């Protein structure tokens, strides 16, 4: 339903905007209906930039994003409102989305005046109740309360509920779990998974690999604005092939395995077949760095549903 086709974003920086920073380069991936795709990368890798382009909050510098076949950049005027009826975002810090001097449910009334001005009071109340039930909140727990009277988890769920008031088909969830405590984290994750089960497409942005691994069907690993590895989540995590992915996975603190053990396992087999990297098997190195179309190596299929673009081509990091 959502498709990124060689999307790039260049920010103008410097005093006169004379320099350009390539925050996202040539990124392509799809998110289907009823699918969670996790977009994983360290801070500054361009995750939020991609989310903002999908949400039309910033312009796309190059390439295109389509939603159900429509070019997102071309959506203008009244059509923008219909786009936001179907595509919404929820961001990291739930507190910053609320004005502390207004009650938290004001975020709902704003949707009503914007999208449903004609709706009767009782129909609206019923709609709110359904949306709250969808995120497992009791109306009397959260309605008519100020933001400081609610927990981070409740505020975050209210924001998802607000999105549900629309005919939402697609959600961009940008680090929405990071600010939450362990015991409420899993509830919000499960909530996203249930929305997915009901057909929603979700772009799940995170720097936390274990969260992405838990919830998503597909994983995209971003490094400095470039996709280095992507595919079915179990393949990317079970058989990490790009050296960067390996570093990330072996650095995640696990609960039953020490770092050293994980590292040893990945060294032993993760992507290396008899010492030959899967990527290099498909794409034998020529000894020149940056080999491949343009200045980046192409994404190569290393197995079904698993693609890798290797940066260290020819630099001897893998035993090619």
């Amino acid at each position, binding site marked *: 339903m959502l498709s990124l086709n060689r999307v790039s974003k260049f920010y103008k920086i410097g005093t006169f905007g004379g320099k350009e920073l390539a925050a996202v380069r040539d990124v392509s991936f799809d998110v289907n209906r009823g699918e969670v795709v996790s977009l994983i990368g360290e801070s500054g890798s361009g995750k939020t930039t991609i989310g903002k382009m999908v949400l039309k909050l910033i312009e796309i510098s190059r390439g295109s994003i389509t939603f159900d076949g429509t070019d997102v950049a071309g959506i203008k005027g009244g059509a923008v409102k219909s786009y936001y009826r179907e595509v919404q975002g929820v961001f990291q810090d739930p507190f910053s989305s609320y004005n502390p001097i207004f009650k938290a449910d004001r975020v709902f009334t704003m949707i009503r005046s914007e999208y449903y001005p004609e709706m009767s009071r009782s129909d609206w109340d019923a709609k709110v109740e359904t949306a709250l039930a969808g995120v497992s909140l009791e109306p009397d727990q959260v309605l008519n309360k100020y933001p400081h009277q609610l927990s981070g988890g409740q505020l975050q769920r209210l924001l998802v509920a607000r999105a549900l008031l629309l005919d939402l088909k697609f959600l961009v969830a940008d680090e929405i779990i990071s600010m939450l405590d362990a015991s409420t*984290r899993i509830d919000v994750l499960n909530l996203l998974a249930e929305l997915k089960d009901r057909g929603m497409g979700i772009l799940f942005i995170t720097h936390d690999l274990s969260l992405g691994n838990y919830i998503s069907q597909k994983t995209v690993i971003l490094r400095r604005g470039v996709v280095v590895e992507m595919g079915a989540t179990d393949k990317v995590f079970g058989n990490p092939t790009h050296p960067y992915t390996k570093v990330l996975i072996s650095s995640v*603190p*696990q609960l039953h395995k020490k770092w050293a053990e994980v590292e040893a396992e990945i060294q032993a087999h993760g992507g290396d077949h008899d010492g030959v990297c899967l990527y290099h098997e498909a794409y034998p190195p020529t000894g020149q760095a940056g080999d491949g179309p343009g200045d980046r190596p192409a994404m190569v299929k290393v197995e079904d549903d698993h693609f890798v673009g290797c940066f260290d081509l020819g630099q001897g990091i893998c035993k090619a």
Partner: protein
Amino acid sequence: MSLQVTDLRVYYRTLAGDVKALDGATFSIADKEIMGLAGESGCGKSTLGNSLIRLDGRMKYIGGSVNLDGNELPIWDQTGMNEFRFKQVSVIPQYAMSAMNPTRKIGKMIGELVESRGISYEEIKSELDRRVDLVGLDEDVLNRYPMELSGGMKQRMVMVISTLLDPSLLIADEVTSALDVSTQRAVAETLVSFRDHGFVKSMIVITHDVSILYQTADTILIMYAGKLAEKAPTKTIIEKPLHPYTRMLISSLPEVGVRYETKKLVGIPGSPPSLLNPPTGCRFRARCPLAFAKCAEEPPFIKIANDHEVACWKATGSDA
């Protein structure tokens, strides 16, 4: 025994009354022990850590004692603590990285710090250089300003500074929390190496991330709502916890390998009580699936096996 804390109580004065953030903590830490301290945000972790070194104006000492290497620490006395602070017990506060004075070069700042403790910069300079090198930083960092360092570099520098005088006890409060995974691992492993090198005798590592503790800590102390819930060796806390809160907390954590599709995790329903007027009896009672009549009384934190302490009537077998 290096640290013995007995029935320590520290509250915050507020207009609405006292916030009972640390309400009777009794535990000890052995020589060479790295004790992890975990629990939901707001449960009193930072209050416990800070109370061993500096009570700020709003913290009120209510009672209890802290004994370090046989010396009673006068924690209620700001000036009396000067003799111990930094030399005997040192802290890396939460948000230490952003608290570094931006107008001072790092070397100069260290000079001022040690001189305030009656030690000349020249005296410690060669040891400082050795440790800077040991954590993988260039000696040149001493001539730079804090803002010129990346998050991970700053965090390592803060660790070197706070342990420069070989304190007996180091308290590290959320030092890995704001970092990317690969940096997080480096910082956590550096903490352990400081203990191994004998720069500190024992350590309290505070974090909301239990999986980091699995990687670094010898023992884990779990807090809930201003009270101690359970303390045991790391492996026991992760694999055979006894307190219902610890059990629910551990089983709600997604880790690499656990997927929503195959194993749906559940959170802990409800939220922690207010510490302004905490409930009597067991503070976990409202959320505990095992609660019974006896839990209206406060469960004592008692030893149920060698190295294993817990505060729960069910776990201590008092439910007959």
